[in-house]
């Protein structure tokens, strides 16, 4: 078991319901054999350059603790998903839940 930070960028024209279903879908996969420590919704953010004809992106951020094998499975599904533009997973030895860089402004 290790700590991971997991961010998903959704398409710009997704509604709130579709975004919720996206979050639920991936949090269910994680819940099978790991646990979610924190979820952050960063909301619609401007992208620096166009990605797949999208100017903006819907950002969701997970802080989780699961095994490495499952990360591969999640990334496999994300790569097929048409609602997702980009994703990123980063491994950490220690995770800090205090600092939030987005969402403070709002």
């Amino acid at each position, binding site marked *: 078991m290790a700590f991971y930070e997991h961010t998903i*960028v959704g398409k710009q024209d997704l509604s709130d319901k579709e975004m919720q279903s996206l979050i639920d879908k991936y949090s269910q996969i994680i819940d099978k054999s790991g646990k979610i420590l924190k979820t952050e919704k960063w909301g619609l953010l401007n992208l620096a350059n166009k990605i797949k004809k999208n100017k903006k*992106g819907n950002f969701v951020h997970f802080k989780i603790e699961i095994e490495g094998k499952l990360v591969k499975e999640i990334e496999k599904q994300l790569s097929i998903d048409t609602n997702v533009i*980009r994703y*990123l997973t980063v491994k950490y030895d220690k995770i800090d839940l205090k600092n939030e860089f*987005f969402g403070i402004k709002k």
Partner: protein
Amino acid sequence: MKRDKKNKKGKKFGSQNRLTLFQKPEMKFGRSCPLSQKNSPIVDYKNIKLLRKYTSDTGKILPSRITSVSQFKQRQLSTAVKRAKILGLI
């Protein structure tokens, strides 16, 4: 006294406009690393405000000889910038 003056210069520089490739030589030399002091900000791919400061207008990473960031922190910066670029934040 001299030391105090130097420190004040450094602080002024921090609040000034962003760094560029064509830095005045007064600001280049004799500064300690701005990221490895006690209250220095966290180097992370989510901390975009900081990363913007250490990249050029076109998105290149500024060399440490201009920003006087230490070797260790420069390595952390470069990975953080690359991660932020994947997500399209920078």
